[in-house]
């Protein structure tokens, strides 16, 4: 590795320009297609990349929530079990120890993503796409971020304007090479 002292980036460039791109490494990574990564490739990005087909409304979500979520998160997203955060709360954060709930998120896609990968707590990755959209709609509606009848789908969810979005300061953009995320234009409402 001593030849790479000038920095890993320089090393990458040198190797990329060489005739054999794997000359310096064992090359034991097994090629795989994106199609074969599907089962793990579940992330959803703020601009909606990764959102699956399907849709759901708050009304549909209420019944699913009562059955699969309320035990820990509390009825209608308040009064949760010990150690579980509430899902409903204020959208102003005046005290440094204000409880962060769903209105804290910068993007609504975060809600869909975490439910898709981690919920329900004891049975993660079992919610259908329809259930995920319906639960997203229900929890956003409980927080009065969307209306009761608005359907959430791959197009509408990333367009939801979260109430706290403009209050974030990126800590040190130069240091981390930050480029702002631009979700699709303003919500239809």
């Amino acid at each position, binding site marked *: *590795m001593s030849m*790479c002292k000038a*920095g*890993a*980036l320089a*090393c*990458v460039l040198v*190797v*990329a320009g060489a005739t054999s*791109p*794997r000359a*310096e*490494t*064992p*090359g*034991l*990574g*097994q*090629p*795989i*297609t994106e199609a074969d*990564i599907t089962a*793990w*490739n579940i*992330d959803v990005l*703020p601009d909606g990349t990764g959102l699956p087909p399907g849709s759901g409304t708050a009304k549909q979500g209420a019944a699913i929530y009562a059955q699969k979520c309320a035990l820990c998160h509390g009825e209608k997203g308040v009064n949760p*079990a*010990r*150690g*579980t955060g509430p899902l409903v709360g204020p959208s*102003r*954060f005046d*005290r*440094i*120890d204000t409880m*962060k709930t769903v209105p*804290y*998120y*910068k993007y609504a*896609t*975060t809600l869909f*993503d*975490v439910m898709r*990968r*981690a919920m329900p*707590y*004891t049975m*993660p990755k079992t919610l259908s796409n329809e259930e995920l959209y319906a639960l997203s709609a229900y929890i956003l509606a409980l927080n009065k971020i969307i209306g009761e009848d608005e359907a959430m789908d791959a197009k509408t969810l990333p367009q939801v304007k979260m109430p*706290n979005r403009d*209050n*974030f*300061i*990126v*800590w*040190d953009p130069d240091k*981390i*090479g*930050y*480029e702002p*995320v631009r979700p699709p234009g303003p919500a239809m409402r």
Partner: protein
Amino acid sequence: MRHRKRRNGAQELTSVEQVAGNGLLHRRALLGRGIMLAGAMGTGVGASGASAAAEPLKNDPWSLETGSVLPPYQAPSHFEKDVIRTRSNPDNEFRTSHARTPHHLLQGTITPNGLFFTICHSGLPDIDPAQHKLVIHGLVKQPLVYTVESLARYPMVTRVHFLECSGNSAPMFSNEPVQANAQALHGLVSNAEWTGVLLSTLLEETGIDPKAKWLLAEGADSPSLHRSVPIKKALDDAMVALYQNGERLMPGTGYPMRLLLPGYQGNMNVKYVRRIKLIDQPAMSLYESKTYSQILPDNKMWLFHFTQEVKSFITHPSFGLTLKGTGFYELSGIAFSGNGRIAKVMVSADGGKSWAQAALEEPVLPKAFTRFRMPWRWDGTPAVLQSRAWDEAGNVQPTRAEFVAARGQTEKPVASPLGFPNQHYNSITSWGIGKNGEVKHVYV
């Protein structure tokens, strides 16, 4: 300062330099640190001189009988049964579990693997290393899959780095000092020697699409915990770590492999890493969007506060320990910075009125624990012990007043040291010594 002391019946003049208020002595008064002042040579700087004569010596049972069989994997002496991690969720309820490092009972800089702090958001996964896979995909030229076995053939690096939860020290956001020990206040940071494959080595093989600005790293645990990492960091010093202090990672620290991002907040060092996806925007995962984002005093929030800023705290003595009598004590503690090496640590025994420079144990490594030491003679009057660290990038650990002005504190006292009122606390810790030698947590 000059004083007379009686030793073995002889009058001896000991000359030791007091360098700051309330009995702080020059760091060269520590043994093994170069020139001792002539009068102090061979006598140390002990001042109490009040020890009673020792009992006559005898043989103890263990000197008279054969010992027991050697275990295949040894554990500490049973006399050390109290040197353990404290757990926030011993019944494994459906919530996050924390196990904190007992800094007040440890010395040096390397945290033993069994005492390394652990946070699991959904319990400990039981991962078969023969089945575990790491895939790198997304904005790459060729997606590739690696196994523990294949990574074992790659060139490795060994580096010492601390790992700190950004919620470490969070009880100190309280407007009144929480009475808790160094383990409860600061137990979510530990330090180890890590061995693994640089992520840049693997990214050479996959190639990088120029559109990639971030990667997301995702674990194989049940919540598939994921975090976004700037490509800049991935190509700097990020490692896929396989070994910790010479042995394979512990289940609580990511077995069989974890991402290591030296100096970055602990949660980003994704454990059980199974997927790295290069992307053109941050994923805004739950943990970067909410949990490990922090609220500032004016309804503003910090996003992507990744670097663990310069911090130090005194471990010996600290809350819960009681000084037994006046005289010489060696103050010692830990300093570290996510921005590089520790440049200097200053210590005060009078609550910050006067300061003196502590000795730093070598080697002083970047983004790693540095142990500092300071000789002190306690005269039995109340004292307030503090340490303050500087890093090589010029950052200084803020005083409490500076910290609170910039980042706030709670309006009401924090009830439990297990709570997380906010993130990224790095101000000074103050230990108040009472006349009786009792050590309390105080603010000055």
